[in-house]
């Protein structure tokens, strides 16, 4: 098992090195002077010269790359051209909010999606099945931020005779009037840890709509994959054998069908991580939550290159780690993967 993890980890390294080269070249390919791109448009000639010397933009390209990698390995990702805050600090500030949101979105998608997909497959061809498939199709084609608008309109703002539905807050992570302490930065967790129940409840209410908006595409995908996997497995010989042996239907479903069908589902859930991170850019902006996504949004609007560069690298690293975890999990569930 350990060998499998190590070998899998070794495969990630060249990808990250390649990515760092691409991102390094990216800032240098930007229109105009890289120093000016890093400093922003209002930079003085003097500071441009300083940065040029500091980053060595006047030196050969390969030397510049090694300086850049050296800084990265020491945890120096540069500073925002807008606020002057170090990129690492911005990332630390935004991370809890986004992790909280992504976790809830994925929970919503998996808890609802796996049973839905399973039952749709078990009742293959019935109206329930058709309804599930149709609804999951709608989930994939609605743009995330349009769905976020719709949810906000109906469940936060409230429209016409349905305005009693508008019970959720429209923006932020917690009401400003609540003076909660935040030891971890994960607001719901903080409320539970400090036993400030109203703060936890309030933070949770702020999470519902963004999590549903962000979780809908993964939900639709998980439903479809689970359904397809269960349908696939149900036709297998070993299921027929189990039935012929006279096993209870419940045992067959749990031990034979579900366990084997879950393999592709686990991979899919893992692959949604990247989608969640980019979806968070859109969702957090609509619901005005301060997280990685909204920080990235600001960086994109203001073309804050150090932040963009650092965040993309960090997100790719997280993405790689999540994929690694998924692969390891896969090895745990399916012994065949470990040996091959």
């Amino acid at each position, binding site marked *: 098992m350990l060998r499998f993890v190590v070998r899998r980890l070794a495969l990630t390294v*060249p*990808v*990250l090195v*390649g*990515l760092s080269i*691409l991102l390094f070249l*990216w800032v240098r*390919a*930007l*229109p105009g002077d890289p120093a000016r791109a890093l400093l922003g448009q209002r930079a003085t000639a003097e500071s441009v010269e300083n940065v040029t010397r500091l980053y060595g933009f006047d030196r050969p390209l390969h030397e510049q790359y090694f300086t850049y990698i050296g800084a990265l390995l020491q945890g120096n990702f540069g500073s925002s051209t807008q606020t002057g805050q170090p990129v690492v600090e911005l990332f630390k500030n935004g991370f809890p909010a986004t992790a909280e949101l992504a976790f809830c979105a994925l929970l919503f998608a998996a808890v609802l999606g796996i049973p839905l997909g399973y039952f749709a497959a078990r009742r293959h061809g019935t109206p329930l099945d058709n309804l599930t498939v149709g609804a999951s*199709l*709608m989930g*994939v*084609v*609605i*743009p*995330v*931020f*349009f769905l976020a*608008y*719709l949810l*906000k*309109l109906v469940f936060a*703002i409230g*429209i016409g005779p349905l305005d009693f539905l508008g019970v959720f807050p429209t923006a932020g992570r917690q009401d400003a009037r609540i003076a909660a302490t935040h030891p971890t930065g994960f607001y719901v967790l903080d409320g539970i840890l400090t036993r400030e129940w109203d703060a936890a409840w309030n933070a949770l209410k702020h999470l519902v709509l963004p999590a549903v908006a962000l979780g809908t595409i993964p939900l639709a995908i998980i439903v479809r994959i689970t359904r397809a996997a269960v349908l696939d497995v149900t036709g297998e010989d070993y299921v027929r054998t189990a039935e012929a042996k006279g096993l209870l239907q419940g045992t067959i479903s749990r031990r034979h069908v579900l366990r084997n069908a879950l393999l592709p589902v686990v991979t899919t859930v893992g692959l949604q991580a*990247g*989608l969640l*991170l*980019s*979806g968070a*850019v*859109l969702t957090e*902006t*609509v619901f005005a939550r301060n997280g990685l996504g909204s920080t*990235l*949004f600001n960086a*994109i*609007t203001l*073309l804050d290159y150090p932040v*963009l560069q650092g965040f*993309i690298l960090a*997100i*790719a690293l997280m*993405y*790689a780690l999540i994929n690694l975890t998924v692969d390891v999990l896969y090895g745990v569930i399916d012994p065949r993967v470990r040996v091959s």
Partner: protein
Amino acid sequence: MTLIAPGSGSPVGDPFDGPTAHAEERGTSLWRGAFARLRRDPFAILGAVIVLTFVIVALAAPLLAPYEPARAQWGNQVTPGSVPGPSAEHLLGLDAFGSDLLTQLIYGARQSLLIGVVSTLIGLSVGATIGLLAGGIGGWIDVLLMRFVDILLSIPSLLLAVSIAAALGRTSTSVMIAIGVAQVPIFARLLRGSLLAQREADYVLAATSLGLRRRRVVMNHMLPNSLGPVIVQATLVLATAIIEVAALSYLGLGEPNPTVAEWGRMLVKSQDRLETSPQLALLPGTLIAVTALGFTLLGEALREALDPKFRR
């Protein structure tokens, strides 16, 4: 590459020993059969109708639209608190800039089709070339190209598109390139996988035994047989592309002129009027979803029609 020794038996079943094929399909090509199956699938027809309507509206926009687009000539009727609703002159009312909403929506179809098709063509041609080289030549070229594709895949596609669009500047062209490049890994992997699956097929062995050059075997025999999944994917990717254009607009990348008719941009610009004039967001948003639905239905029906597993 291991070749199956003659007489050892192919793992692929004999195509003619299955249950009796449909009489009407016998003797027709794969694509003719697929088309016949598509015509019997109600979802495929729905998808085709949506796609066809979208394409016609996009192409005939100047004939269909009641006014010229992006003129904002009724800007004086728009106040911060309200936008004029439907009237005799303006069937759907005005947009937030004082242009006719119906006109903007019709021209928006044009913009979505143009960006969607061009970006998918970029993704398809670059991706397929990489996939063809990797799957057709193999060896170290395969390893090198696939590691490059892995790097592209390590960035979520929307962020990849964002980085490219940010580097290229705010124009429609840079959005097309950005979305296209973000699709490259999908097509590259797909075609490579598809080619690798063909490599062991009997007809490849036959062609090789006849002494055909490798290039000829790949280009004339393996490639045409591997294109099915790629075409299906292109249809599905068109749906994603139309949604991603909207997402990039939302992020402030793309055409800088705020009055240009583009569904994603119209949706974004309506954000602060959500309470007072929800139609400004609902109409373009619904159009994006319906168009994406059309391409998705068509693509999935095509996938099933081409997949021998689904042949009934």
